[in-house]
């Protein structure tokens, strides 16, 4: 069924009731039905803490993506499923923390590259930096690959959060 040729990456926003087990339901759905999860983020978003927003990045053929949305939509605690990739322009961001350990020339080079990527040093010791970077996943990937030869020892990424452009809410 999955034919990599017409597989495409989709970013899907899901508004759910903030109840125990809701994340397990969503993840179980993906693993149980063999769908891909490239990244998944979740946090409360309503002031009353009654709703959470899940952003999931997945890949699949149009038929699989349609199934994923339908399957998400029929979970009882799910209120809204929105395919940001096809519903118009949207913004995607990811935050990453990169730990680069090293001294001398490499250390200077790491700082220089961080600057180009507008990554901030949020921790530093004589032998290491922790950089914080925000941007698209591609940008984070690029920074990681540049830092690799400069002593990158640890990466922590949030996964993608996304929102549609323009005045309309989800």
């Amino acid at each position, binding site marked *: 069924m999955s034919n990599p040729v017409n597989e495409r990456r989709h970013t899907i926003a899901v508004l759910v*009731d903030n109840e*125990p*087990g809701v994340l*397990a*339901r969503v993840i*179980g759905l993906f693993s*149980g039905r063999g769908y891909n999860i490239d990244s998944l983020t979740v946090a409360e978003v309503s002031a009353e803490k009654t709703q959470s927003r899940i952003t999931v990045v997945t890949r699949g053929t149009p*038929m699989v993506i*349609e*199934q994923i949305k*339908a*399957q998400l*939509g*029929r*979970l*009882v*605690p799910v209120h809204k499923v929105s395919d940001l990739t096809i519903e118009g322009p949207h913004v995607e961001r990811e935050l990453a923390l990169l730990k680069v350990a090293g001294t001398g020339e490499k250390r200077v080079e790491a700082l220089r590259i961080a600057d180009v990527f507008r990554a901030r040093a949020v921790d530093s010791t004589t032998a290491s930096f922790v950089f914080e970077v925000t941007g698209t996943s591609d940008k984070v990937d690029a920074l990681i690959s540049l830092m690799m030869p400069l002593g990158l020892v640890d990466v922590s990424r949030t996964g993608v959060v996304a929102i549609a452009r323009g005045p309309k809410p989800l």
Partner: protein
Amino acid sequence: MANQRMTGAEIVIKALVDQGVDVIFGYPGGAVLPIYDALFQQDKVRHILVRHEQGAMHAAEGYARSTGKVGVVLVTSGPGATNCVTGLTDALMDSIPVVCLTGQVPTHLIGNDAFQEADTVGITRPCTKHNYLVKDSNDIARIIHEAFHVARSGRPGPVVVDLPKNVVVNQGTYQTPAQSRTKKYNPQVKADIARVEQAVELLAGAKRPIIYAGGGVINAGPAASQLLASFAKLTGYPVTLTLMGLGAFPASDPQFLGMLGMHGTLEANYAMHGCDVMLCLGARFDDRVTGRLDAFSPGSKKIHVDIDVSSINKNVRVDLPVVGDAAYVLEDMIKVWKSRQYRADEAALKAWWATIDGWRKRDSLRYQPSKDIIKPQYALQRLFAAIKGRDDVFISTEVGQHQMWAAQFIGFEKPNHWLTSGGLGTMGYGLPAAMGAQVANPKALCIDVAGEASILMNIQEMSTIAQYRLPVKVFILNNQYMGMVRQWQEFFFGGRYSESYMDSLPDFVKLAEAFGAVGLRATKPEDVDGLVKEMLDCPKAVIADVMVDKTENCYPMIPAGAAHNEIKLGPEGGVTSSVNDEGMVLV
């Protein structure tokens, strides 16, 4: 009345009563003793004590399918809950509304590997429509009401409510169904009228139409089946049903082509293959129905009416999805057809029926009769002859060849009278399901058409049947084999009958007697009518052991992974030839 304080256990019972529950199927244990104590002190809810929790689940399914109501189960924590998993999965696959109340260790012990603790919500999450862990006695009523709402709304399914012991012991406040009303889950029942109009237009222009209806029409209530009959009358179009849909259209109607799919009739499968417009109503393009997907009804425009968006475009791409309840949609379709004064294309339809009649003449259900041994098909024909015309008969089945023959040889005129495990194919379903149907319909005739292998999977329920004096009839087509397995081994594994012979079977007549029922046996074709009569006349439960041909195969058969037009009608030509490597991996 509202805002009464009572114990959690009393709240559970009151919530059930307010949901209109008159009977539950269950089995006690430590975690649910408070609920059993509350049950003891009231007389509104009747409890049927099963002999295994799986039996309770299937009984509740039989109860639900035969009444259209929600079936209810009550079991204890740990093993009580895990024994329900097969039944929950079965109900999920076949869209049967069941609420299953499970006991749980007290909240402060959850996660401690306490005695008889199991992560019930974790284990049942993928096999329920939804599940709940109740943590506060004040939430019990609201959650139970919501559970019933979820179980019966939209596409029905099983819901688990896990009740820790302290939560049912502590006091809480009761809430009525009205106070608990939720906006949360309200699936769309009425379809977009523009879609319906498009569908009717497409259908009116058809030259070779077919209506392919399934279990969703039965889920939509008896009115949906009547509307289906009206729509078929109005258009003159042929109708075929899935295994789960049997009864949604009268089997005796000349427009009925029989069941379709792997063991469906030639005319139904050929009509599906050759149609130009297909109306799929509450059916889900199961692999047992479609056969090889890329060869499935290649030239047709497909309309799919389903209440569950996830059923649409899952296996087969359709041209016109219509999301809504089958009854509402049929009603609208009839209105549109009439108001726009559509007429079927008479000439084309006549030619189409002539083609179909040609297929019908090949009599794809025919079999080689015998004077010496009982053919299973013959036994079912005689059973059907004896019950034909009665509208108080419920037939359940186990899983295997006997199930397919029952589907082929017993005609159903009305919905909700056929109880079978289609999606999961659970051996051991039929006896408890018949028991549940008998509890719901005490005066009716409830027959489990069984295989000798399947019946042993929940045979303990004969004891329940004895206790409540339920006159359930078990009609075993005893071929001494797991016939369906043997058939596949014959066709696809060189006749190597690995572990499919049923050695050391019990004497079913004596077994019946041991359970206080009546045992009957037939070994010759001339015994069959007498046995059937004796069984039907008997006021008690009966196990009828019908010794049938051991090596009969079930035809027609579309081998897994083959196309509809590669259907095999009998041993001539062989079945093996049409199966390729891709087909061999399919179940």
